[in-house]
């Protein structure tokens, strides 16, 4: 029965699509996800990540190094990114968020797994093909103080993409292009001859965004782009990024640890714990109907501005520390800190899928969650 229902699930939720069409669309794995996660049509994913793994080897010995283990920074992550959407990735420090960003930017070599950009696996590319892909995937860095070369003028920093990819702008046209980009990110085009140290943190981050936009990329990977900024400046930069997304139809992969900001900017959210994806869904599904205990614990820590509501709500306080990624727990990685953990959790790795009990339900709890005992618990609004 369950299998049958899986096929029919999208039919119920997408009333504008006929039953046969939906059944056909439900065949490939990506389409099932798309149909279930989003009530709106998303089309083909622009970036598909499949079982991405990054293990950093731990070696011993000076001359003859031998591997004694590996830090499993990212351990089998899969997700899709659609054209024009923002996928937020949240998780605490050390859970592998930034490694995912570096892997997608091809700044690190993946241990295994694939990243498909428009159907092409980019992890195996090199030379000219790699450069061509780099044009379309750009990054905004976390720290605006170290991501801009202090010895280059703003004009040189934003113009550098055109030096590397001369096809991006004809030679005589570059200066005008750079000034246009400064204008787009809300900076005075006359600042072209200044140096990064003459700008504030927020302005520097705008310069970083302008550099990322220079080559008209389709995907921008933002690795905690606002966490180094003041709260008031965070809002400006986030608003700018939203404006640019609409203007240039950008897809963002937005990595952050601030849950409120992720909720504000994201269409979908993925929650990471110790190198694995714990739960993924639209922002309403994750924030209002979390089913994974880790997500519930994270959300219960979000500050609530209303003092009365704050008193009534339940705080889930996790015990213990995050286990070492070099020696993660067997089975479910969260089991050492989970209040629901049972024997099954130590032996069986939970798969990231829609939990059995929610398969037939039409509520927003029916999204992918990697927990054997997934159940809904509204921690944000609970009285």
């Amino acid at each position: 029965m369950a299998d049958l229902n899986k096929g029919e699930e999208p039919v119920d939720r997408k009333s504008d699509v006929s039953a046969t069409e939906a059944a056909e669309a439900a065949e490939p794995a990506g389409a099932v996800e798309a149909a279930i996660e989003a009530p709106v049509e998303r089309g083909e994913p622009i970036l598909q990540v499949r079982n991405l793994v990054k293990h950093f080897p731990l070696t011993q010995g000076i001359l003859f190094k031998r591997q004694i283990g590996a830090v499993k920074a990212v351990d089998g992550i899969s997700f899709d990114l659609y054209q024009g959407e923002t996928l937020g990735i949240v998780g605490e420090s050390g859970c592998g968020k930034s490694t995912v960003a570096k892997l997608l930017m091809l700044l690190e070599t993946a241990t295994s797994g694939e990243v498909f950009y428009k159907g092409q696996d980019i992890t195996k590319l090199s030379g000219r093909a790699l450069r061509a892909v780099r044009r379309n995937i750009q990054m905004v860095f976390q720290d605006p103080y170290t991501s801009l070369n202090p010895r280059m003028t703003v004009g040189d920093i934003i113009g550098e993409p055109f030096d590397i990819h001369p096809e991006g702008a004809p030679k005589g046209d570059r200066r005008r292009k750079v000034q246009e980009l400064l204008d787009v990110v809300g900076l005075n085009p006359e600042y072209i001859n200044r140096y990064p140290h003459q700008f504030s943190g927020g302005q520097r981050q705008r310069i970083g965004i302008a550099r990322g936009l220079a080559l008209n990329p389709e995907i921008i990977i933002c690795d905690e782009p606002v966490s180094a900024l003041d709260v008031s400046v965070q809002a400006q930069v986030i608003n700018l990024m939203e404006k640019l997304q609409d203007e240039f139809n950008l897809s963002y992969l937005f990595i952050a640890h601030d849950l409120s900001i992720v909720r504000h900017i994201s269409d979908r959210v993925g929650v990471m714990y110790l190198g694995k994806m714990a739960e993924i869904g639209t922002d309403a599904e994750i924030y209002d109907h979390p089913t994974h205990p880790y997500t519930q614990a994270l959300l219960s820590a979000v500050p609530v501005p209303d003092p009365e509501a704050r008193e009534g709500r339940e705080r889930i306080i996790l015990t213990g520390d995050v286990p070492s990624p070099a020696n993660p727990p067997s089975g479910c990685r969260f089991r050492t800190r989970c209040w629901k953990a049972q024997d099954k959790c130590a032996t069986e790795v939970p798969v990231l899928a829609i939990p059995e009990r929610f398969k037939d339900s039409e509520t927003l709890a029916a999204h992918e969650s990697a927990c054997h005992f997934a159940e809904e618990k509204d921690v944000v609004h609970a009285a």
Partner: protein
Amino acid sequence: MDLAMSEAETLEKTPGGPLGTGPAGKPRSLWSDAWFQLRRNPVFLVSGLLILFLVVISIWPSLIASGDPLECHLSKAQEGPEPGHPFGYDSQGCDVYTRTVYGARASITVGVCATLGAALLGSLLGGLAGFFGGWWDALLSRIADIFFGIPVILGGLVLLSVVTSTTVWPVVGFIVLLGWPQVSRIARGSVITAKQNDYVQAARALGAGNGRMLLRHVAPNAVAPVIVVATIALGTYIALEATLSFLGVGLRPPTVSWGIDIANAAQSIRNAPHMLLWPAGALSVTVLAFIMLGDAVRDALDPKLR
């Protein structure tokens, strides 16, 4: 974007020297800005003129000294100044003024060439080792350790005693051979620091090759400590030449150098201090000029100090 406007206003008020006030005229780069800065820096102008003067008299010493440095009158040994011989005479009765002027050539050649050689070789090898890391780094660091282990005086006595050439080049070569590991260690360390910065990752994410990352991002941010070490080393190298000459394995007569004269004068410093004063003074001024030049260049390459 009201807040962006207010940010813009505050930026307008920040003092930025000639860069902050200039309109967005023609595009400028780090090097053109550094040159703009240097031309207005009195320290650079003074040290530059001094070095220019020293170079000119090294090439044409007869411009300011009409005598012959090898024409000596033992009867006048260690005598003080007299008309026509403002600096007095040394132990051999040679004119100290003429010898000081003629000594500039050998000393400056040794100092500048050895410094350039050690700095270029050291920063090239150390920079590449720091940038690429791995086995190349391990190999190079061990080789540098071997050269570090050679004692300067003993090494000089052994290596230079077999050389028969009377030119300065064996001494220059020896100093470069012993001097590059120091620069290479400094360069390696600062390259490793610089390459970890996010802007190097950003350049790589844009598709920049190793050459561009090294030349545009790593080198300009790693060069400052190398400049400092090199300018200080320049003085040490001229002094090292003097030591080697004193031991009889450096420059040999009839070559005239400050080092030889300082070594000779040191023996009779109580009887005739003027013999030491002039060549040592010339050496100090030369070293000071190069250190000031190095300082000015280093500051000009750092936009934050403008």
